[in-house]
């Protein structure tokens, strides 16, 4: 079953082409690695899926249903979660609140179970701003888990994270894979890409130049 499919996505910012006719399919349960230099359009691609930017042309299908006309929150509610390159946690909210905001009506003990999984339970009453970069990233993973998203978009989750937290993050990703989640991962480290991904797409100036 195809989890996500992009057809001919293009996006220009002013005169600069960010994405040029990008198309791909990804099967459910698979992990896609997105690689490419800075400004090659990787983040814009994720933004086009979650509608943080609206593509100029092209179509996006999630589980066979066209979603590119939906507003961002509706897309998120279909089960698409993401982890941001920066600024993804609500810094002035507590760790627990950061999870509760994602869980809509779930009970606190459920949120606490997940905090335990991402090793943040003892921080639950602290402001998210007090967490380290890696812990903030883990908190975002917690949010994705509490929402039980099917498709998870990861934008450089290892950037600027200590070795210890990187290991934790990697094990969380593996666990998500075991649970059958579909993942798109932006990452520079080719060894890590090889370890984690089934497919690889390389972008340059907004175009796909390599598929594996």
């Amino acid at each position, binding site marked *: 079953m195809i989890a996500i499919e992009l057809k001919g996505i293009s996006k220009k910012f002013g005169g600069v082409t960010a994405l040029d006719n990008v198309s791909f399919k990804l099967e459910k349960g698979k992990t896609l690695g997105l690689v490419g230099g800075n400004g090659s359009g990787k983040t814009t691609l994720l933004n086009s899926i979650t509608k943080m930017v609206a593509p100029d042309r092209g179509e996006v299908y999630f589980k066979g249903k066209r979603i590119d006309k939906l507003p961002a929150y509706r897309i998120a509610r279909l089960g698409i979660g993401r982890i941001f390159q920066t600024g993804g946690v609500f810094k002035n909210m*507590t760790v627990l609140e950061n999870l509760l905001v994602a869980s809509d009506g779930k009970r606190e003990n459920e949120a606490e179970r997940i905090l335990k999984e991402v090793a943040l339970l003892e921080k639950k009453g602290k402001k998210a701003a007090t967490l380290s970069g890696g812990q903030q990233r883990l908190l975002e993973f917690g949010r994705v888990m509490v929402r039980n998203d099917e498709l998870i978009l990861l934008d450089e989750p290892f950037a600027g994270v200590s070795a210890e937290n990187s290991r934790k993050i990697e094990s969380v990703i593996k666990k998500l894979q075991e649970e059958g989640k579909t993942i798109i991962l932006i990452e520079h480290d080719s060894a890590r890409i090889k370890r984690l991904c089934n497919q690889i797409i390389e972008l340059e100036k907004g175009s796909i130049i390599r598929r594996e």
Partner: protein
Amino acid sequence: MKKVLLILKNKYFYRLTRGDEKVNRRIILISAAVIAVGLVVFFGLNQMGLAGLSAPEGAGGTVKIGIMLPLTGDAALYGESIGTSLELAKEEINAEGGILGREVELVLEDSACNANEGVKAINSLVNLKGLKLIIAAECSGPSLTAAPVAEDAKALYLVAVASNPDIKYAGDYVFRIAPSDAQQGKDIAQIVYDGGFRNTAVLFMDNAYGEGIAGVFMEEIGRLGGKVAIKQRFNQDDSDFRTQLLKTKETGPDSLFVVGYPQAYQLIIKQMYELGLNAQIFAGDTFKEASIVEALGDKVEGAIFSAYAESNSEEFRRFKEAYRKKYGKEYGPYGDYGYDSLYVLKAGIEYAKSFDPEVLKEKLYGVEYRGVTGLTKFDSYGEVDKPFGIMTVKDGMFVPYEAG
């Protein structure tokens, strides 16, 4: 009960504090607030003890009189002139031995020409400072909100100036020494009609004062058989009336009735001349302000307006002279009424031989006081029926208008 409280505590207090590290600080601050309230109570009680008048009948000492004035806001100009005139009256009275041997002290409170502030001011005067004698001079909003509070506190509420006809029904403790707007609108309409003007443009300020007088005026002029060429409102802070005046000019009126504050009169007449609109000017009692003539010179010559004061009496000349001597300038608008109000109160107290509002509110009906603003004699509503004077500008001076 205990269980309910526990649930509430768990539900709200726990969640209130969840994840908040500053709980202690919060609790401390809230208690600080409560303490602040307590301090105000203490402060108030203390002040009450100091506030004199604990024994209204007692001889000697001072008598404190609460004064409500617009010291800030739109009508601050009037607050200032009434306040200084009251100050003058106080000094004169004290120089001659006070009222029933007691020295007069004025306690001022700002009503800001605002209904909301008026309530706060009167509460401070009658309830906090415990004053039983109030002189109020202000806009209609605060007079209408403050009068019931004074009534509840059984404090005498003497209105020096306030325009609104509704004050008539405000209560037993409420007296007014100035005639109401209803009278004024009628009188000026009569003058307009008698002068042979049949097509009058009306331009008025969008507050209770302007609306009140203009409303009565338009009704009366219609009844008499005249015509209102056009009626227009303006905002009391406006300074550009050119388009209103252009509209007026297009309707070709023979006369223009304007109600506003002095600033508006001055600008309207100026812009009227600049635009080449010629019409006889009629105005409300706010017109009697020297700066209008100063600024406009011969352009206001012949303007006709209603006025409170009976301005040729001996008393009036004496007041005018005394004010000039004390402050080095002419008295401001309604200063005469402010000045008279304290004397009326004095006359009432001396007539009743008592400072007690309970006694005063009965005895005031028997007072006849001839002062700067003419004869003050209250009817059964506590209103006066001073006739409105009609005045005009002649050789740059305000003089009584004589028809023909």
